């Protein structure tokens, strides 16, 4: 049953991504509507899969790479749907759904067996800490997609070569606004995730902070986004500078989330 749900979500996301990419080439209304319908359906199936796995495992399904990549993908699509409804920027899907699809496809490559939970991790904090962190990540992922769109559009305007994408991409101001909104949602979520993680660490291992690589890199990620938000609010970093920093922030975030798994294991290792 779970495999069927997972594969269905993967197939629907693939179809939605294909239609979003088609929309990028030919921005017909019908593509936009079809893509929106597909991605919403895919999200629903993916959500049912996640809830079903939660029920079967008896804990929040985010304890190995298969589960976390899948949940990351779910969160990205969820936040994307909210943004799409709020701002009516269908073309955002062309930049975000491939990312979500990639995460889900990667997730398929990792073992999907439900393993018993390490006793130290058996806590209500698991749900709170990870859900907050991944929702924050998802908001940053959207900001990343929007920032790429911003850089392309701003490149066209600066170079005065109004290429094929120029007409299709939204105005710079709107892209900047969406990116900013995502940061203002993502940053508090990440902050609370780190705080809740510290509290949980104290109850599990008796210490709030132990500087394991994941914690250290999470802090680095937090600092990058804190600097970006601070810059935006005080000196008004916006536009290209903000877009570059948002892309950098997401790259560090991805390293924190995935890259660290290839380094010597720490407390957060999924292996």
């Amino acid at each position: 049953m779970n495999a069927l749900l997972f594969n269905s979500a993967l197939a629907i996301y693939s179809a939605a991504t294909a239609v979003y990419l088609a929309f990028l080439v030919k921005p017909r209304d019908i593509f936009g509507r079809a893509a929106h319908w597909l991605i919403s359906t895919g999200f629903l199936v993916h959500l049912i899969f996640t809830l079903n796995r939660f029920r079967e495992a008896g804990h929040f399904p985010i304890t190995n790479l298969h589960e976390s990549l899948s949940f990351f993908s779910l969160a990205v699509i969820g936040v994307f749907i909210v943004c799409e409804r709020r701002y009516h920027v269908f073309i955002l899907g062309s930049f975000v759904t491939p990312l979500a699809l990639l995460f889900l496809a990667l997730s398929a490559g990792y073992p999907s067996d439900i393993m018993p939970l390490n006793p130290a991790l058996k806590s209500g904090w698991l749900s709170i800490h990870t859900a907050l962190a991944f929702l924050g990540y998802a908001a940053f992922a959207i900001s990343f997609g929007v920032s790429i769109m911003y850089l392309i559009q701003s490149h066209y305007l600066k170079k005065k070569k109004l290429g094929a994408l120029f007409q299709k991409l939204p105005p710079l101001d709107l892209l900047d606004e969406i990116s900013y909104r995502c940061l203002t949602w993502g940053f508090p979520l990440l902050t609370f995730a780190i705080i809740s993680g510290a509290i949980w660490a104290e109850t599990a291992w008796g210490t709030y902070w132990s500087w394991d690589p994941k914690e250290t890199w999470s802090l680095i990620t937090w600092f990058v986004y804190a600097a970006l938000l601070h810059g935006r609010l005080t000196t008004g970093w916006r536009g290209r500078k903000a877009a570059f920093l948002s892309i950098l922030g997401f790259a560090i975030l991805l390293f924190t989330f995935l890259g660290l798994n290839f380094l010597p294991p720490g407390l957060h290792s999924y292996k």
Partner: protein
Amino acid sequence: MNIIVVGLSHKTAGVEIREKVAFAPTQMEKPLRAVVALPDITEAVIVSTCNRVEIYATTRDVAGGMARLKRFLADYHKVDLELLEKHLYAYHGEDATRHVFRVAASLDSMVVGEPQILGQIKTSYGYAAEFKSSGVILNRFLHKAFSVAKRVRTETKIASSAVSVAFAAVELAKKIFGDLSDKVVLLVGAGEMCELAAKHFINSGVRGVMVTNRTFERAEKLAEEFDGKPVRFEELFDHLHKADIILSSTGAPHFIIKPKEVDEVIRRRKLKPMFFIDIAVPRDIDPKVNDVENVYLYTVDDLNGVVATNLEQRKIEAAKAEAIVEQEIGQFFKWLSSLEVTPTIVALRTRFDDVRRTELAKTLANWKDLPPDAEKKLESLTNAIMNKLLHQPTSILKKTDQGSRNELYVDALRQLFELEDTAPREALMEIEE
């Protein structure tokens, strides 16, 4: 029934001729009634814009109808017919249909893809409908033209980009700022093109306008015209940060706005984007200003470049639009020939039935001592013979997918059996419904 078009446009006549034959849009009743009163003209629609004057009409007699419309145009406007004829074009059938579809889709316009023409044709059609000068055929004809124009608009990008410098500037501003309703435009200098561009920005709903000029009085005058605020030229840099869009066209021989100053201004604005448009020759703004973060500078050459790219794009889209037009012509003619078929069948049946009745009556009058039910039997016998004979031609005519062959059959039948145009307008209306 044939559709004919007689008219002239910016392609065939200069403005001095066009203005002579133009119809006042508010006084269409008289000319429309006059056209439909012409012999052999059954329906008419007059389109009169600053770029074209055209009469669409329906007639059985193509050559006569066209000649009458030409004479009407000359007589109505008291212009010499010979002179007028040099500028007139006349189309019928498929060519007339292609013409109106192209006109409505803005493929025949001075600026291909401009949207005004469709509205103008709709207004003209509105007058024709109001004064009842259009009927089934022209109604359908123009509705089809509207739907072709809509298809062209949705399926091609023919009108998606600006083709004048002023509009290109507004379009670019919209791509930078999105909504312009909270943006302020600053005019530096008061050149003619700058004024024009400013008007376009005001029409796009900007929040405010500031004007500065070396002669303060000129700035004041222009500011008043735009309901804006005048700024002293010496105080330009004290106010520059308040402006989002800067249109510059002074007669200065050197750059008056330089990167260093813009860099300071943009910091003061907390990096909020600025859009500089330099229309002056020689230029007012140092091109290096474009390198400042979140600042976009376009010169008149850059804008011309944008317009040229857009025009090129329109040419590609126009080719797609022409293909749509060709496709739709076929569909319209299928309908038109089906319209011809029904009255012809009715007329043919009436003719046969008349003959049958007359001959039957003659026979019965000379025939004495008939058995009681013989009259009824003869009636049904002759009816059956007539129906059998007419069955084959009727069913062939009803196959509307034969295209031009249908017209041929209809014409042949009308001539062979001397069928008059027996279908009055009301009957055609019923068929239409």
